[in-house]
């Protein structure tokens, strides 16, 4: 079974790359889809490579800050909702509202108030907040009933219960949320850059569009996808390790 589950995706990869190259060469989709080789040659060109690296660092930085801020806030509010159940209904509603805030509306406001530099991080934190709030809440509630009862018979206080039982049991769910949040943070950061950030992958996307530098545009998309996949992969490994540890 194992070789097949590795071989088929590999085949799929090769088919995808091959199709891209052929479609691009044939010009079937015009200038919009250049051949894969053309796109990859962007990475070989020193100035453009440097641009991509610089921009990636900036975007990654904003995304990471937004991610950290959103995750901490989301988890903290979830813990609050868990400890003070009367608040939970309202906090759930609030989380939904925050998540539904249209970025295009937040953008201009944040530019003025938070500044051009911080807007990407701020926009990255919003979806992360929501995802971590939901997954932390789910995780905290997912404690096995039997273990819960056992803690009661041991005379455990609320704080001890939270620290020793619930937060550990919540870990798989939290990591699952963190996994999904990685992609959202990237999107938030990139869209945030569109409102006037000095550098970043979002800016490169916009500029390459305006200057018809299509291979550069695709190269940027590849970089974005690669970063998202890499963070997703790392967090998946962390999630698996946590699940194994918890049993």
């Amino acid at each position, binding site marked *: 079974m194992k070789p*097949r*589950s590795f*071989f*088929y*995706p590999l*085949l*799929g*990869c090769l*088919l*995808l790359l091959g199709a891209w190259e052929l479609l691009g060469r044939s010009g079937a*989709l015009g200038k*919009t*889809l250049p051949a894969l080789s053309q796109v990859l040659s962007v990475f070989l060109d020193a100035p453009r490579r440097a641009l991509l690296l610089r921009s990636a660092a900036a975007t990654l930085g904003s995304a990471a800050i937004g991610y950290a801020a959103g995750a901490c806030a989301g988890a903290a509010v979830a813990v609050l909702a868990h400890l003070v159940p009367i608040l939970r*209904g*309202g*906090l*759930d*509603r*609030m989380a*939904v*509202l925050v*998540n*539904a*805030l*249209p*970025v*295009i*509306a937040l953008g*201009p*406001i944040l530019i*003025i108030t938070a500044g051009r530099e911080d807007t990407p991080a701020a926009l990255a934190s919003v979806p992360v907040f929501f995802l971590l709030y939901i997954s932390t809440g789910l995780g905290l509630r997912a404690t096995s009933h039997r273990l819960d009862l056992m803690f009661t018979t041991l005379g455990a206080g609320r704080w001890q219960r939270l620290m020793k039982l619930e937060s550990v049991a919540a870990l798989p769910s939290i990591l699952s949320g963190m996994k999904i949040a990685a*992609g959202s943070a*990237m*999107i938030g950061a*990139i*869209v945030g850059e569109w409102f006037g950030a000095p550098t970043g992958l*979002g800016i490169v*996307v916009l500029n390459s*569009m305006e200057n018809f530098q299509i291979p550069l*545009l695709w190269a*940027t*998309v590849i970089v*974005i*996808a*690669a970063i*998202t*996949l890499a963070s*997703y992969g790392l967090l998946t490994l962390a999630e698996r390790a946590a699940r194994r540890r918890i049993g």
Partner: protein
Amino acid sequence: MRRLVDLWPILLLLLLWQLWVSTAGYSSIVLVSPGAVFSDLLRFPGAYLLPALHTLAFALGGLAVGMAAGLILAIAAWFSEFLAGITTPFALLLSSTPVVCLIPIVARLFGYEGRTELIAVAVMTFFPSFVLCAAGLKDLPAMSPDVFKVLRATRWLTLRLLALPAALPQLAAALRVGATYSVLVALVAEYLMQTGGLGTLFAVTMQQFHLARALGASLLAMALSVILYELTRALEQRVITYYR
């Protein structure tokens, strides 16, 4: 009564907003009070109605297309392990590229019109639908595949009578996830391409410094998004309790 009480955070946020406007002293081309926004919404509903319907139509349309595409591909993957394997890289690539970055590319291919907006929403809703439906089709009651084998059920019958009904909870979850973001993606597409709807209304009124209307459009979009989320979440709950 309980539900109304839960609305306290909205009131809190509105209060904070009002406070911010009152104390920060920004000019009205930067920020307006909630009062100004609501008054514009109430006095000129006509200006908002058509754009709101436009956005809703495209959001729901894209949602339907994306959900259907995800379900169909999940079923195809269920039938053929080969297909499941070779489509994985493509699905993975699609999921890790933000839809909003793809909008410019899709626009070049399909034109700066409504079609692209629909495709953008569909692409965004496709991936959760595909992943969740594929998982749901495999989440079968213990030993039931063996029962179906003994009964000599064909692949199609097994899909129709066992796998598809079993996948319904995950399908409902995918609908909820898709609904949450469909309005927002439609909004971004409308903003970028000026194809109508609340996103375009926002872009245009921002340029005219008519901030109250711009924020009104955003609030309306937000309301649509929340309503869709609540509806699909309620649906998901019903399905889950039915299945228990």
